[in-house]
């Protein structure tokens, strides 16, 4: 399964704030791809309908990303490079990981491996 490339960085900066609020809404929709965030926003990836949303999340180094399982079926969050691995997340369970180093972190659900996502850690360019 291919994961889409993150969208080109969206500027100006004020747009990020506008995008932050609808992250949860975006997450449940199809086509939720990359999203821009500011350093203080909670970085949430929703798991709904066997899909990680947004499928690609871009954050600054030092950001803690939290996955929340909204399905009636348990899922896991496992880094392909084995950097992190959640316990089994039942409905409404959460898992957090702090990304210190810039890079691309592909992950998947070890129970339903067709579920894949990516966290892109990159320094703000401004």
């Amino acid at each position: 399964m291919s994961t889409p490339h993150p969208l080109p960085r969206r500027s100006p900066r004020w747009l990020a704030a506008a995008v932050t609020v609808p992250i949860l809404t975006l997450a449940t929709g199809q086509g939720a791809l990359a999203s821009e965030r500011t350093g203080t926003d909670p970085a949430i990836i929703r798991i709904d309908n066997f899909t990680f949303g947004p499928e690609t999340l871009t954050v600054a180094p030092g950001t803690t990303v939290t996955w929340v399982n909204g399905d009636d079926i348990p899922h896991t969050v496992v880094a392909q490079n084995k950097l992190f691995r959640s316990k089994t997340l039942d409905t409404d369970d959460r898992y957090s990981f702090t990304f210190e180093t810039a890079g691309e972190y592909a992950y998947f659900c070890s129970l339903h491996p067709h579920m894949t996502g990516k966290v892109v850690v990159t320094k703000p360019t401004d």
Partner: protein
Amino acid sequence: MHNPESLHPPGALSRRGALECMTWAGTGLLWSLGGGLPRALALPRALAAEGSPAPFTFLQISDSHVGFNKPANPDASGTLREAVAQIRQLPEKPAFIIHTGDISHLSKDQEFDDADQILRDTGVPLFFVPGEHDLLDDEQGRSYRDRFGRGTRGAGWYSFDQQGVHFIGLVNVVDLKAGGLGNLGADQLEWLERDVAGLSSSTPVVVFAHIPLWTVYPEWGWGTQDGARVLACLRRFGSVTVLNGHIHQIIQKVEGSVTFHTARSTAFPQPAPGTAPSPGPMKVPAGALRTLLGITRVNVIRGSEPLAIIDTPLAG
């Protein structure tokens, strides 16, 4: 009988080969006997003296998800109990039961204990393979193997023979790869090749595993990446029956001498491929639930291909 290979396996002139031919032919005679041709008695009697396998029935049960309590079925233990009650009422007691995985919902000790206790009430031997929901303990399957997989190899694969039929339990829910489907792995496939190497092609084979061994719907992960290697390994056999679970609905396919069958769950139904945004539990009106849950009986009659598979819902 329509498979020439099973009638004339390599080395058919050997005594063993000849007996195998007779075994296949014997069933026809058995039916003739039922039709009132007493002279036919001779062959079945002769075969009986050689320890000929008699027709028998075994049962498949799947995806009991003990511990599941979400709206699609708040009482998965209750519906498993109903399935067990149904099994106990069968006029013909099955020789044994095969459980094709997802015994528990979250691999908790209590869930395994409850499942074990409920299933014991069937009063017949049980054989298991794990589903992905059975390997969620911290040691990734230790709990399952200690309870349900004693004496098995690797992550829980094994084979056994019952009344002339070779049964193979495979594990395709371990070490799944990102973006992929179910996975058997090289070790298990090598073992499988060795396991069937000595078998005559006329031996009926039943293979069971949790995730479908053929590709049902890859968009939802319903298939096994290296499942084709199993089928390649079994192609020479005259009768192969593949029993799976995981998708909580009946789907059947016949390909040459191979019959594929997936069983209903005893816990909750899942949508038909592609008919919903996700394969998650399907909520149906309370009255309809039990028509979508059920058990599967398999009648093994030598020489009758494919094996007769009968699905029975819990109600309706």
